[in-house]
């Protein structure tokens, strides 16, 4: 994977003392936070509609590019990020409206939904490759790579920011889902979409909210990923990690998605640091297989309802 080489720069090995361990935990948590965000964006849709949104990665990529080009065109960084989030929302909702919703209305199998998602991802990603070139671009006008010293522990500035923003975003989302009326509607739909419809919950409205949230988290994740590594057309493949995190945590379970994301982030950081950054992703896939073998439901399986 392309990102692995960049990650390797952060770890030069040698000193494996306590401070390095702490530094790696922080890095792992920050990567894990971004994965957790992505995984929640994916799991939310899965929990409500029972299908995998495989078009998720390209929303992340498009948002990152919006930030990139708008900042290059002279926007402030904050403005660029705001635009990226706006486009992430619009694009995510657009996909829902033109592709997923009409298909769900026809009650198609989830296989068709997966193929549709992959189709969107293929079309968008390869359009970007053809028009923009496949090369890697550094995130403009932001220097976040320099470390912050905390005592004798050096931690990447980007890691701290990513960790804080992910936690805050996850916190806001949790409050939204637990304490607000639309949040309750989403949770009810996640329990049983058909019954939710009967209970007077507008499933179409729920779907819009869910895809808006998914667009926001995709954009935030895309920006952080771009800042930490680079921006490039195939960066959407990182969403595979979100899927894996989701399966590890328990498909369709939001808390599980967060836990899965953080476990994955920590695992990858430690593998990069102590074993080899080349094989970092291999360990993620290995963990996926182990989980499927020994805990097929994931760490926190979504409780099955009587859907026969």
């Amino acid at each position, binding site marked *: 994977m392309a990102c692995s080489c960049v990650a390797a720069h952060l770890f030069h090995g040698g000193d494996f003392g306590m401070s390095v361990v702490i530094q790696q935990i922080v890095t792992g948590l920050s990567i894990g936070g971004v994965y957790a965000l992505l995984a929640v964006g994916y799991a939310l849709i899965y929990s409500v509609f029972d299908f995998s949104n495989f078009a998720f990665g390209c929303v992340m990529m498009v948002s990152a590019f919006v930030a990139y080009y708008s900042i290059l065109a002279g926007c402030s960084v904050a403005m660029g990020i705001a635009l990226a989030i706006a486009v992430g929302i619009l694009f995510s909702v657009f996909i829902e409206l033109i592709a997923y919703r009409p298909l769900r209305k026809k009650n198609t199998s989830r296989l068709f939904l997966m193929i549709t998602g992959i189709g969107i991802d293929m079309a968008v990603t390869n359009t970007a490759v053809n028009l923009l070139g496949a090369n890697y671009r550094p995130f403009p006008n932001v220097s976040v790579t320099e470390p912050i010293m905390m005592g004798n522990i050096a931690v990447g500035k980007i890691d701290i920011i990513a960790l804080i923003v992910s936690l805050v975003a996850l916190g806001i989302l949790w409050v939204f889902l637990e304490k607000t009326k639309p949040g309750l509607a989403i949770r009810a739909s996640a*329990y049983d979409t058909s019954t939710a419809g009967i209970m007077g919950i507008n499933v179409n409205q729920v779907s819009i909210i869910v895809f808006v949230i998914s667009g926001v988290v995709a954009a935030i994740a895309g920006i952080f990923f771009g800042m930490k590594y680079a921006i490039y057309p195939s960066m959407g493949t990182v969403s595979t990690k979100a899927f894996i995190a989701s399966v590890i945590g328990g498909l369709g379970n939001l808390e599980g998605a967060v836990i899965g994301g953080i476990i994955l982030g920590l695992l990858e950081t430690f593998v990069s640091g102590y074993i080899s950054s080349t094989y970092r992703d291999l360990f993620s896939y290995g963990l996926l297989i182990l989980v499927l073998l020994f805990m097929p439901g994931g760490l926190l399986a979504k*409780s*099955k*309802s*009587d859907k*026969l």
Partner: protein
Amino acid sequence: MSDFLLETKNLTVRFGGLTAVEGLDFQVKKGQIVGLIGPNGAGKTTVFNMITGVIPPTEGEIFFKGSGIVGVRPDRIARRGLSRTFQNIRLFEKISALENIVITLQREPGYSLVEAFLRTKKVREIDTEIQKRAYDYLELVGLREYADSVAGSLPYGLQRRLEIARALATEPELLLLDEPAAGMNNEECDSLIDLIRNIHEKKGITIVLIEHHTDVVVNLSDEIYVLNLGKLLAHGDPHAVQTNEDVIRAYLGQGRKNK
């Protein structure tokens, strides 16, 4: 070893905080037709789902032919001689009626994968024989002329019949019918009653029937269990159940909400 073909003891299932079925003791003797009735949401289909292994019970035991089947995979339970139909029809929609039966008859191929790839003489012979048997099952439910029709395009009533034929093709000892008369008019109900009786007598299959059409249940059942809110409300012969006050109350209370 009990003398019941099917027996549940303290069968209980909870989904989240909701108890769908609670402490159900349910017994079916070989050769009986047993009715399982109750207002909507009483947990009848859930009982079928637990018996067929689709949903694991939270508590309790299920015995089929004297051996426990909780935790046994649905396909293994089926192969022990238990089959069912579904309330919301679950046919193999996009293929022909005949193929629906053929698939079921061939669920255990009877030849190896290599033989399948080479399509040996044995495979072809088995195929021919299976085709013949498939027609017999269609004949039994009066669907022979629809053999080549796509299952999903058949009228509702015929789809229900095809589901019964498919269930019979597994050669069950016990057949669970989940609202076989749903959406049928009186005339169709009458012919369904004939069909079920025919199956019961000719094939000697024990039947458990979930049904809202009172005519059908009362007409067919030797014994009726009434469920309400997941609990057993009453049980006995059709006449006793019909005059049971608890049952009348449960149905009247629900009457307006029922369609």
